[in-house]
């Protein structure tokens, strides 16, 4: 699924000499992991196989100061696996899966254009994360690297709170068992550069 407008798709590459655009195609082997804890255990819920092929567009202006990133990944809340069916259902219920079956990560910008070498490079970037119908902007820490075949690995991590998305962390038995508000979100995107 492409997230560029048809006009952009049809336009010749780098028509505007002030801009340079690159496209990265997200492979199906990408994954996302959400880690959290309660006062009785820790949990780790994963979407192991991203089942779509999306495209990220990297747009650098001539000054090179601002790197625009456009593209979106859509994740089915139903695909979360917490390695325990009861916890999986509980997470899906908390994320209001029936009302909002899709979680979205919209990529907005990068702090710099990555060098794309074998050695992972630390950069930051802005994303919009939409969960349960609420969209919030976050700065994400990325590790980005690429191999000789131009396979790019983008690992992002960010702590978010249930309350950022107006979600109530589950509490059971009158609050005696409580899920902590903080969640750690890690995603690993495998991409191919289209030059």
């Amino acid at each position, binding site marked *: 699924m492409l997230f560029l407008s048809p006009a952009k798709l049809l336009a010749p590459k780098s028509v505007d000499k002030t801009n340079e655009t690159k496209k990265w195609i997200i492979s199906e082997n990408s994954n996302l992991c959400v880690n959290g804890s*309660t*006062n*009785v*255990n820790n*949990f780790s819920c994963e979407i192991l196989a991203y089942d779509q092929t999306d495209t990220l567009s990297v747009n650098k202006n001539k000054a090179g100061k601002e790197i625009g990133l456009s593209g979106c990944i859509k994740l089915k809340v139903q695909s979360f696996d917490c390695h325990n069916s*009861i*916890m999986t*259902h*509980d997470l899906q*219920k*908390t994320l209001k899966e029936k009302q909002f079956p899709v979680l979205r990560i919209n990529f907005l910008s990068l702090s710099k254009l990555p060098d794309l070498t074998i050695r992972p490079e630390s950069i930051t970037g802005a994303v919009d994360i939409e969960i349960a119908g609420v969209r919030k902007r976050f700065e994400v820490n990325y590790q980005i690297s690429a191999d000789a075949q131009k396979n790019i690995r983008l690992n992002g991590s960010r702590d978010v709170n249930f309350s950022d998305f107006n979600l*109530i962390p*589950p*509490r*059971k*038995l*009158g*609050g*005696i*068992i409580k*899920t902590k508000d903080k969640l750690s979100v890690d995603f690993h995107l495998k991409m191919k550069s289209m030059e």
Partner: protein
Amino acid sequence: MKKILISGFIAGCILFIVSYGGLFLAVKFFPGLFIEYNNPLFNSNGSRDLLFYLHAFIFSFALSWFWDRFKGLFKGVLILRGLEFGLVYSVIALLPVMWISFSALDITVVMVLSWFIYGLVQAIVAGLVFAKINP
């Protein structure tokens, strides 16, 4: 009637401390027993917390009436009367409820056993209080 209400209220206060204090300590020292409660089967948005914490009083007032009606059947010293009362309640009321809960709900044997023991201890404590206050 007054005796039923007063002994029910006193037993409710004691059960409140014993039950929720016990639960708090159990979660602190045996957290592994409570992992199964991360289950959509259990209310998770806090909307029924008040009902949950009122349970000790619902339980104590019901048992207070039961004690007043049948206390003549429980003979012997205070401890024996309290123990017998708790066991009678557990066999008549708890055991069938636990049986149907386990057969119908997606819950574990450990969970059902813990509920049975929890109810048995509550009923024995209530029985001891009633035997003392309303002999």
